């Protein structure tokens, strides 16, 4: 589109560009400015100078260090587990004939269920109250184990509930995508492989997995990014004071620095947000580099 019709193209693009400029580009630049302004005060709207003091402060803040630790644990545990389990469930789903649609719906339900409602259900399952130790503890007691306080107890118990919750919440989407990826593999490949005498496991490893590898990889990358941005699920389980519960995440820390009870520090929030960006960027870059060697785009 060269020449005099060019202005038309710009006109059509204008709404999107305007929207992106106001809500994406400007805030992005603003975050960088906030992060570099030292001792910025909301009240006066002034800063004392430019530098990396905010980053130094954030990195030294024990709450932030805890948040990074939590976030990484959630990412490292939930992404592989949810992807793997989703793949198994998708394989199961696509190999059954009867009731396939019913099961697909059942597995998709968490996706359309409100986070807080799900949080409530998890409370009933895991929370210890004066009247009951929660359903899971009842089961633990039944097999002779001691009651564990999953919501206010030891760190590993809280982390377990957190990861369990996250995996459960992200699986429907992955199952949906993987089931359709599996359905799009031409059945002739399976027939050919069967005639060629390949075992089911070999068919899976040599045919199915490479054929859906681009989808699996897409889910891993978006899974990583999504898990790094975890926050609302934590609130649903442990309430708004995540620092006190020791279950804060990086995004939670950013929010607390802005609006939390100890908030009012946009510069710290911006610095933390940029650190998160750097982490996600690096991980995604590594992912893509690895994928170029292993993923089949067919």
């Amino acid at each position, binding site marked *: 589109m060269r020449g005099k019709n060019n202005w038309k193209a710009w006109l059509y693009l204008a709404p999107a560009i305007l929207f992106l400029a106001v809500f994406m580009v400007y805030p992005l630049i603003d975050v960088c400015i906030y992060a570099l302004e030292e001792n910025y005060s909301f009240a006066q709207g002034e800063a004392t100078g430019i530098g990396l003091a905010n980053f130094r402060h954030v990195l030294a803040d024990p709450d932030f260090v805890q948040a990074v630790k939590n976030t990484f644990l959630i990412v490292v545990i939930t992404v592989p587990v949810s992807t793997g389990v989703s793949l198994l469930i998708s394989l199961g789903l696509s190999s059954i004939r009867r009731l396939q649609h019913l099961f697909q719906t059942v597995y998709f339900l968490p996706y359309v269920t409100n986070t807080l409602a799900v949080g409530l259900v998890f409370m009933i399952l895991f929370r210890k109250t004066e009247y009951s130790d929660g359903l899971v503890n009842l089961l633990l007691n039944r097999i002779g184990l001691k009651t564990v306080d999953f919501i206010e107890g030891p760190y590993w118990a809280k982390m377990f509930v957190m990861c369990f919750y996250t995996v459960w919440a992200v699986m429907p989407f992955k199952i949906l995508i993987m089931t359709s990826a599996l359905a799009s593999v*031409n059945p*002739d*490949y399976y*027939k*050919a*492989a*069967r*005639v*060629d*005498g*390949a*075992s089911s496991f*070999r068919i899976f490893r*040599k*045919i199915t997995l*490479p*054929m859906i590898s681009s989808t699996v990889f897409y889910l891993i990358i978006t899974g990583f990014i999504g898990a790094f941005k975890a926050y609302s699920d934590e609130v649903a389980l442990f309430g708004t004071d995540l620092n006190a519960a020791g279950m804060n995440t990086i995004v939670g820390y950013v929010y607390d620095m802005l609006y939390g009870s100890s908030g009012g520090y946009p510069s710290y929030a911006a610095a933390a947000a940029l650190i998160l960006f750097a982490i996600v960027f690096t991980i995604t870059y590594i992912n893509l580099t690895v994928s170029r060697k292993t993923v*089949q785009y*067919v």
Partner: protein
Amino acid sequence: MRVLLDHLTKRFASRTEKGKDVIAVNDFCFEIPDGQLVGLLGPSGCGKSTTLNLISGLETPSEGRILFGDRDVTAMPPEERGVGLVFQNYALYPHLTVEENILFPLQNLKGRQKMTKEAMRQKALEAARLVQIDQLMERKPKELSGGQQQRVAIARALVKIPNVLLLDEPLSNLDARLRLQTREELRRIQRDTGVTTIFVTHDQEEAMSISDLIIVMKDGVVNQIGKPQEVYDDPVNLFVAQFLGTPAINVLEGEIRQGRLRIGNEAVLEMPGKPEGPVWAGIRPEGFIQDDNGPFTCGLDRVEVMGRDVSVVCTHEKMTGRNLRAIIPAETAADVRGETVRFRLKPFKVYVFDRESGVRLP
């Protein structure tokens, strides 16, 4: 290896009507002799692909038995039957190279059949040489032409040295020129290996040109089995006669009266010993001889030049379907002009069929 199909029947449950079955293959009995190239021929939906799937083991028959040699393979899964199967779309694994595709069946071998890596590569190379793709081993399928992909598929099917090679519409994805070339190639490969080969096609020309035997199917039922020329010259019913030959046979409403075949008001051919009554008269396009005193008169529509021969397109009120077509040598076509054209008929190119059942009258 000899393949015996013994009263083979395959029923599928109907999707639209509950309790009703669709019979895809109905009571198929045939023995395919060792080392032959057999063409399974019929219109789409006639059950030829199902027959192929039954032989390969991808489908299990509702009734009947399949024997490879003296071994009953009816209940055997595909991998134990030792068949090679070439799919219509080739089904080459797109993420594997040509060599990896050909190696795949060998890598699946277990137990005593297991081979060393070097032996497998050697085998794969032999198979690739046979179909002349040994220069392309490192390529991915999408970097190959349709013809090359098909060769890879054949190499993959042959590398294990199967008892039976099965090909499902092997040439239908190729362009016209390549199709001619590839079918010669197929014939050569089959001769070189001596593997009993069954291929499915809806293209009668393809089947006739390279097969030792052809099997003509319709609605799951075998209509006729024989050498291509025999089936062409001696069709058992109207369907087989119509299905074989291009241009197709001309079918006209006729009548046998007093030992003669009558079409319209003309007695066109002496046909002693046939039962009297209305019939379908089938006349092969090459069964006409242009003769100004001939007994059979047609309206002349146009003359199409084909080089050595010409195709005389005629009209006749008793003709079913489109125009009547006569193929005559170009040098005798000079006299064909005007409103009408008259023909003599070659007796062995004219068949009569029962008007009701379509069965050929003896």
